[in-house]
């Protein structure tokens, strides 16, 4: 089955092409094409994963270009990590597509939407399967294009347009780093293949300095895609896209690409202590930073977006503290429960047509299915015991503790608390209390939307059990199999109180949120006063956008202004002098030009005739 794995990304591509060609005629039926092809892709991924359990890494490449001594190849590789990723991506994509059947009902460009989804899925799957950096970069950019199209799907909305542009440009900034990193890496190792690169790294061919530089540059790419501080601002804005898109891109796939990149290049990072540190600190900071913003946001999707940023920071933190397994594990569980949360949020939005949580409330009774599912997701993300988030988060905390970086550990604990708090704030604001809106017409979403949520809900509950301290660390063992030396232990052993701490912190967060927003025992603005400076800072996301505006944008404007004056007066003057003189000479010359081809021909022929006559007379060929 693994040798046929190349078909996995091909299916969505075919769906995309078919929809592109005949989508206009198919209209709503186009969705089924997308779903069927994605289903095929998912089934194949599942089979591949099954086979991968027992078989070794499979790699197949074709050479397509030879440059000097270097051969560029294209192909695919199935190792543990990407086999897992394939399943996650195709599953989430499939569920999102099914969900969209209900969510996007009545949308005019139905087939276009599915075409874009297919395209994005293709790009993401291709990215995951890439066996070398060139191919990875290629799909990396395609993912960017796909997300651009999807975020800007409502292109007639000014905000959506801006958000799409922003997402594209911000991630591009990261991509430039990645590209430079790849080029440097090629410069140093002479190869784009992962295997060869890792070998070169381990054999110590590359100096420490450049290794760190390369690793950090590559990490910059990951920062861009995964929305880590300071390139995170595009992610909340990207919520302008349709909610299923948010679930797909901003929960499970695209943003995870950054984490995936770091995970894939893990041996490289391991080789550089400084890079690891940078990853860990960036992740940790982002986690708490985003969590604090999320605590005050009022837009349900934005809360989730900041939550995503925060969770991604968590993963980065895990990776940076050598918790390879922990990071990947959390990536997986997060994909499920965050997708669930987004879909549930979408379902809520679908039901009451607003995204403002202040205007929601009391929906528990009305949304009989969405409510519990949302609760499951919330519990999972908060690290409530025995749910998937509990295990993966626990793993991260363990990793941080084991690594010995206590500062980061504390950051992570605080973030855990905040996570539980803001998530339950969200939950209670939406579902508890009184209806703050005439909720008469509130209707539960159709079954077609509930079904994917249900699947995700089940997964959010059970997916944690493949890596638990009690039932065995199946995932970790499998992931590091054959690479134990590089990727580290399958499971970080830590003191038991870590787990207890995590649970109690989460429970504390839940309790606080309950008091504030469900019972309203405590004043709502208890923690942070609504008009306090901190609140405003948080509400405005630490003024990041404004900072960017005043620093980078203004600086560039200043430089541009300066350059434009330079251009206009100094260079322009120079050029106009030159052109002026040439023009003057040309004007004199153009007097000779009548513009009449015949005259030119005549003159040319006259010349030829004269030459020929001279030649003949002087005895050229006559002899």
């Amino acid at each position, binding site marked *: 089955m693994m040798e046929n794995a190349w078909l996995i990304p091909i299916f969505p591509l075919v769906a995309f092409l078919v929809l592109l060609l005949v989508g206009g005629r198919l209209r709503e039926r186009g969705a089924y094409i997308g779903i069927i092809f994605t289903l095929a892709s998912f089934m194949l991924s599942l089979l591949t994963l099954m086979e991968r359990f027992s078989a070794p890494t499979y790699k197949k490449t074709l050479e397509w270009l030879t440059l000097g001594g270097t051969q560029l190849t294209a192909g695919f590789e199935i190792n543990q990590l990407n086999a897992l990723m394939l399943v996650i991506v195709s599953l989430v994509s499939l569920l999102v597509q099914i969900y969209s059947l209900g969510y996007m009902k009545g949308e005019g460009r139905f087939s276009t939407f599915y075409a874009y989804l297919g395209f994005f899925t293709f790009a993401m799957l291709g990215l995951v399967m890439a066996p070398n950096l060139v191919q990875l970069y290629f799909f990396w950019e395609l993912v960017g294009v796909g997300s651009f199209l999807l975020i800007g799907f409502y292109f007639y909305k000014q905000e959506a347009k801006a958000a799409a542009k922003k997402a594209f440009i911000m991630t591009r900034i990261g991509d430039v780093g990645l590209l430079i990193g790849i080029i440097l890496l090629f410069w140093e190792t002479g190869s784009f293949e992962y295997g060869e690169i890792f070998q070169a790294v381990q054999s110590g061919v590359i100096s420490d300095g450049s290794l760190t530089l390369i690793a950090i540059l590559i990490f910059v790419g990951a920062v861009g895609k995964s929305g880590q501080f300071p390139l995170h601002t595009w992610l909340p804005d990207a919520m302008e896209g349709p909610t299923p898109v948010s679930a797909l891109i901003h929960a499970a796939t695209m943003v995870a690409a950054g984490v995936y990149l770091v995970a894939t290049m893990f041996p490289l990072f391991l080789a550089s202590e400084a890079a690891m540190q940078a990853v860990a600190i960036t992740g940790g900071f982002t986690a708490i930073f985003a969590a604090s913003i999320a605590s005050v946001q009022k837009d349900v999707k934005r809360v989730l977006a900041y939550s995503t940023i925060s969770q991604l920071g968590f993963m980065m933190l895990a990776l940076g503290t050598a918790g390879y397994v922990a990071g990947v594990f959390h990536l997986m569980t997060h994909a499920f429960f965050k997708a669930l949360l987004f879909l549930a949020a979408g379902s809520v939005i679908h039901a009451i047509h607003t995204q403002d949580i202040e205007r929601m409330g009391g929906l528990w009774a009305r949304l009989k299915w969405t409510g519990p599912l949302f609760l499951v997701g919330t519990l999972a993300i908060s690290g409530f015991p025995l749910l998937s988030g509990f295990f993966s988060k626990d793993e991260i905390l363990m990793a941080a503790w084991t690594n010995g970086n206590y500062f980061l550990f504390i950051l992570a604990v605080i973030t855990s608390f905040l996570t539980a708090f803001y998530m339950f704030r969200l939950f209670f604001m939406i579902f508890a209390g009184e209806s703050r809106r005439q909720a008469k017409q509130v209707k539960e979403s159709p079954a077609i939307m509930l079904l994917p949520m249900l699947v995700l809900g089940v997964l959010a509950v059970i997916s944690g059990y493949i890596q638990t301290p009690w039932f065995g660390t199946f995932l970790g063992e499998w992931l590091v199999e054959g690479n134990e030396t590089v990727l580290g232990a399958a499971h970080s052993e830590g003191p038991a109180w870590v787990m207890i701490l995590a649970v109690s912190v989460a429970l504390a967060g839940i309790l606080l949120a309950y008091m504030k927003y469900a019972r309203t025992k405590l004043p709502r603005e208890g923690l942070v006063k609504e008009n306090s400076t901190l609140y405003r800072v948080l509400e405005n996301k630490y003024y990041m956008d404004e900072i960017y505006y005043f620093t980078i944008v203004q600086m560039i404007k200043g430089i541009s202004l300066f350059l434009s004056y330079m251009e206009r007066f100094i260079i322009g003057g120079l050029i106009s002098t030159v052109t002026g003189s040439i023009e003057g000479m040309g004007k004199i010359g153009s007097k000779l030009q009548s513009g009449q081809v*015949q*005259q030119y021909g*005549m003159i040319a*022929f*006259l010349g*030829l*005739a*004269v030459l*020929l*006559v001279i*030649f*003949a007379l002087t005895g050229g*060929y*006559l002899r």
Partner: protein
Amino acid sequence: MSVSGELIAFFGLALVAILGGVLLITLTKVVHMVIALVFTFLSIAGIYLLLSAEFVAIVQILIYSGAITIVMLFGIMLTKHRENDEPAKGGWQRFFLLLAIAGFAVAVYLGIYNLDIPVQPTALHEENTKQIGIELFSKYVIPFEVMSVLLLVALVGAIVLAKKDDEEGDRS
């Protein structure tokens, strides 16, 4: 050189060809000029026949008289203009040109004058078409294909050129 049928035919055809050419220059009406040139083209086809190139001769008639002339006539009829075509250039310009052409002709003629290549027996007239076909599809197959591409490009180009203005006209 004895007088043979071939010679008579050659002179007859050459006369018609040159006459057609001269008429092209001396006539005043554009359509007349084109019709005059038809005769030149036809007699050139005859010349080809004398040179045992019957396929080329037929193609000459097919393309020149059958297609190009008609296309030219179309061009004339579709573009309304003065029927007469008086020479554009001033007298002295034409004088210089004539002089140059005369010089050119003399120079080339001097080259041709003593050209003496021994006549060799050829088998060109036997299955002429087949020979051309074999040559065309073996040795010159790439030029042949290139030629087909060229024709296609010319076709597309001509259509685009002739059509483009319609849309512009609609816009304005």
